[in-house]
């Protein structure tokens, strides 16, 4: 129990780091979460007395890209610290133990931290054939998840597969895959979608939960701090959209000049994620900056929406035209009023919602329904 009671600040001190380092860590994380400065101070105060949490990371129908993403981030700073400052009690890919020893260690960690651990779930859960498509240590994924969820303080579904079903859920869905929220219906699930999610988003959500409890979520169960704006609203190519300058092929003048990729199928206007601001690979770039439209990977059913290269405005039968035009028109008004104002109001809204909605997540929609 001694290890469980060590606080996050204690872990910093044990690593020979000063209070300033701790404040810097909190400032960087608060910035990541688009929180106001007062929140960084509050985060520091809370984490200084928060016991280092046990994290159980379970993988089901997934490709391990979420974990690959999570471990390749800003190394060796923020994420490295987070991994040093939580107790990652079980992750079948990262841990050295295997087989019965691993299962025994996991059971022991869950028993010790029952009711207090953070459960991270990666991958969809197959319900077909009585759950037989995904079985480990004699237990089906669905039974395993139901049991682990009972002892969890929070459940975080990382990746689009866990959040919305993702690739396993795509038509024809031969295994009867479902998202975590369809198995765990009696309590909130924090959806951190993306294929994979941005590494700093995954770790940022964990720190946020430790500092402030349940984050404010959108109607898809995603934390508003990261999924509150569309890619389009924050895209640096947005001025070209507003000017009507588009790339029509990947080798035309528009593509070479870095114009808007809307007509090449970019799903930025209907995709909510932080790629345009946080970016990838240590802030190097994101798909649009590299010349390719957004695939919409953080949205439900992105795989089945009629083609990555089909423009949104084309009648695909999958992307409601009204939604697209509405989002674009709203975005235009916001840009006209000034992006700075948008960002500020978003921060304030997030903070207000955070304070107001802690522990009371909004009802979620069935990912099947649009």
């Amino acid at each position, binding site marked *: 129990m001694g290890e469980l009671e060590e606080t996050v600040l204690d872990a910093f001190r044990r690593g020979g780091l000063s209070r300033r380092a701790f404040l810097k860590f909190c400032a960087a994380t608060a*910035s990541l979460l688009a929180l106001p400065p007062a929140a960084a101070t509050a985060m520091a105060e809370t984490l200084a007395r928060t016991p280092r949490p046990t994290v159980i990371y379970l993988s089901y129908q997934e490709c391990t890209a979420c974990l690959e993403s999570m471990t390749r981030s*800003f190394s060796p700073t923020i994420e490295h610290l987070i991994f040093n400052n939580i107790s990652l009690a079980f992750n079948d890919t990262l841990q050295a133990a295997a087989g019965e020893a691993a299962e025994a260690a996991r059971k022991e960690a869950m028993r010790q931290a029952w009711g207090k651990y953070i459960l991270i779930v990666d991958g969809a859960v197959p319900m077909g054939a009585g759950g037989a498509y995904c079985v480990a240590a004699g237990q089906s994924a669905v039974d395993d998840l139901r049991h682990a969820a009972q002892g969890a303080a929070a459940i975080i579904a990382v990746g689009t597969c866990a959040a919305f079903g993702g690739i396993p859920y795509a038509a024809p869905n031969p295994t009867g895959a479902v998202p975590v929220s369809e198995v765990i219906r009696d309590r909130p699930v924090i959806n951190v979608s993306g294929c994979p999610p941005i590494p700093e988003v995954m770790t940022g959500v964990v720190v946020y939960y430790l500092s402030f409890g349940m984050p404010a979520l959108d109607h898809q169960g995603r934390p508003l701090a990261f999924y509150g704006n569309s890619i389009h609203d924050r895209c640096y190519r947005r001025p070209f959209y507003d000017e009507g300058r588009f790339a029509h092929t990947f080798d035309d003048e528009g593509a070479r000049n*870095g114009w808007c990729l809307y007509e090449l199928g970019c799903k930025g206007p209907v995709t909510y994620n932080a790629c345009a601001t946080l970016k990838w690979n240590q*802030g190097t770039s994101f798909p649009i900056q590299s010349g390719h439209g957004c695939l919409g990977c953080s949205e439900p059913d992105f795989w089945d929406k009629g083609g990555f290269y089909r423009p949104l405005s084309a009648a695909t039968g999958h992307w409601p035209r009204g939604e697209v035009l509405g989002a674009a028109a709203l975005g235009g008004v916001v840009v006209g009023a000034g992006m*700075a104002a948008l960002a500020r109001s978003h921060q304030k809204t997030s903070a207000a919602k955070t304070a107001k909605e802690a522990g009371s997540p909004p009802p979620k929609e069935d990912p099947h329904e649009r």
Partner: protein
Amino acid sequence: MKPIDAIPIRPAPASDVAGNAPALLHEIAAALDTLLRTGREYCIDLSALPLSPADRDLLREALGTGEVRVDLDTLGNSHIEETGVPGVWWVCHRSEDGVLLTESLAICRVPEIIPAHPADIAMGLQGLQERMASREPGGH
């Protein structure tokens, strides 16, 4: 492997229009006014805003360079400098790899990370007293 700069194709510059900086300057002015009247601090997270190079140039030019520069060496470098507008601090936190973690404008008398924290002072005092005691046997 070639360095990324050696690849001959690159995206066009985002924009040479300073569309967002003027709005930010108004926000800074309002925050300074609040600081002066009520003492309430404020922070603008630049890393969360879509700023073009022209926006950054305009901000730098309008705020100017001040008298104080502070470098923190903890978890990588942090550079904090007061702009030519007293009370407006340009704060850059970098990782141990030199990656920019966050860049912000803090509107306050002194950023919170600079003053020594009581807990660190207490630990420092304890260490100093131990060293004093070891130098002067029997004395405190």
